[in-house]
């Protein structure tokens, strides 16, 4: 039997920015398709608007900054930013909302800090938080997943709704929208209902809201594929989801009437998408092995704190941005010891 032997140096294949970004996009596809299946054409239309705006904005900023336009446009980083932002937006978000969010992400959160590789904050989440605090009404008008909706909008009807804000005659916003599982859990707990009472509503599936829990699973699949391809490191998603699970379990075991199942926290809102796709952003996340564990676990903890005691139903975006701020300090104190040197603090 003949084995090919190569002489040293044995280098790992170089991974280009475009290659990594392309793999992230592939990994996002299953979850995105699931979202289109459950929430209708709006997700796809928003995605097309978001990506178009992202490419145009990126080109303008690169032109103004006198950088090679074709080179940086083809690395897909703007597409990934827009894609992640759009997934966090309600399916019938008006076109101007998407435009403002994507433009803010790329112009202020990315290029004003120096472009790809220099942004201290995750651009997609910065854009999302700007939209959430500026346009609370539009940002909380979520559609009901298909098995709960009374009517589903067709492609053209959705297109009209996105661009003009008009629904077809005879359909009211109340008929197609519904509270998200996290939102409804929050409201009902505020009305002093117990978890058992809340879960009798048809909104609930096995652990999360109907539809929502499955979207989480498809994103999980994409995330695991990214782990397998070694595009992302396991430390951040694992530590984030573990931290979220542990604190949710402790509180659930101490008082099951007022705290939902730990699995509910994992499979609702942006927890899985955040753990695998957003917190792992190679630019704004921590880069040392132990630092990544601190960073991920802190995000998980903050997500739980914001969801349970904070002012918003979900807290992934805020948690990621807060921990982005802490990254320089985390990296500084967790610098690995290089061989022959004393460790930090000795």
């Amino acid at each position, binding site marked *: 039997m003949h084995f090919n032997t190569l002489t040293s140096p044995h280098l790992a294949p170089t991974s280009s920015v475009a290659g990594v970004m392309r793999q992230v996009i592939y990994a996002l596809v299953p979850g995105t398709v699931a979202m289109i299946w459950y929430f209708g054409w709006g997700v796809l239309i928003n995605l097309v608007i978001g990506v178009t705006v992202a490419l145009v904005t990126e080109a303008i900023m690169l032109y103004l900054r006198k950088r090679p336009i074709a080179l940086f446009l083809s690395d897909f980083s703007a597409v990934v930013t827009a894609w992640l932002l759009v997934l966090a937006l309600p399916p019938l978000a008006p076109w101007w909302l998407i435009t*403002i969010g994507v433009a803010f992400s790329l112009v*202020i959160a990315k290029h*004003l800090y120096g472009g790809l590789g220099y942004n201290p904050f995750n651009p997609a989440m910065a854009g999302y938080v*700007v939209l959430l*605090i*500026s*346009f*609370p009404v539009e940002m909380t008008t979520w559609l009901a997943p298909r098995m709960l909706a009374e009517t589903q909008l067709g492609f053209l009807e959705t297109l009209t709704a996105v661009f003009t804000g008009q629904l077809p005659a005879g359909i009211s916003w109340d008929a197609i929208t519904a509270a998200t599982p996290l939102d409804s859990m929050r409201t009902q707990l505020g009305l002093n209902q117990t978890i058992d009472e809340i879960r009798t509503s048809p909104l609930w599936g096995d652990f999360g809201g109907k539809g929502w829990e499955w979207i989480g699973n498809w994103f999980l699949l994409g995330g695991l594929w990214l782990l397998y391809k070694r595009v992302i490191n396991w430390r951040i998603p694992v530590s984030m989801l573990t931290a979220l699970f542990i604190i949710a379990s402790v509180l659930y075991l101490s008082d099951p009437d007022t705290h939902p199942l730990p699995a509910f926290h994992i499979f609702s809102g942006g927890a899985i998408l955040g753990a695998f796709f957003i917190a792992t952003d190679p630019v704004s996340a921590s880069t040392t092995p132990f630092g990544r564990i601190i960073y991920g676990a802190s995000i998980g903890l903050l997500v739980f704190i914001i969801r349970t005691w904070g002012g918003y139903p979900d807290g992934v975006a805020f948690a990621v941005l807060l921990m982005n701020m802490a990254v320089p300090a985390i990296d500084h104190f967790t610098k690995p010891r290089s061989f022959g040197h004393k460790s930090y603090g000795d």
Partner: protein
Amino acid sequence: MKNSYTGIALEGLWHNNPGLVQLLGLCPLLAVSATVINGLGLGLATTLTLVVSNITVSLIRNWVRPEVRIPVFVLVIASIVTGIELAMNAYFHELYNILGIFIPLIVTNCAIIGRAEAFASKNTVDRAFIDGLAMGLGFTLVLVLLGATRELLGSGTLLSQAHLMFGEAARNMTLTVIDDYRGFLLAILPPGAFIGLGMLLAIKNIIDKQLTKRAATINIPTDTLPTSA
């Protein structure tokens, strides 16, 4: 040039603007610039303080020993601000309520003690007066510009609540620039102030760059210009 009245005025209004170049007094600048009227109110109060404190400090500059000058300046400024605060409480009561803590906090505005120390304590009364006026108006200009940008983006109006400043007759001065505007809340919230100020700084730097470029291109061929022109 720098020591003429025009030079001093230009320093305060543009080249050494307290808001855009010295970056002094940022706390009130960021906190009360949510509308044009708030900005204008605080800007004028600061200008008045600067003018009176500059004149006073310049008058007493030869009798204050250098060892105790800072406490003396602070006492002078604090007395002036107390006077202005009482006057605003009497004549612009609603505006006084809106500006709240930022009126007494003019005492701690670094721009005022900065001008007292850096200019008024070394110059004659007339020049100290011009400097205080120019610096104050420069600060007001930034406050009003930032206030206008944030108000326009945040609520689509300009000069809302003008009656707080100009009396009942001005109640109709509010301009609704964009009808049926949803309001970009971020502009009115604190992040809007930081981003807005950053943008103003960038615009000023662009203008300055253009001016130097133009000056450079004009200066080269001066000897070839016809002398009669």
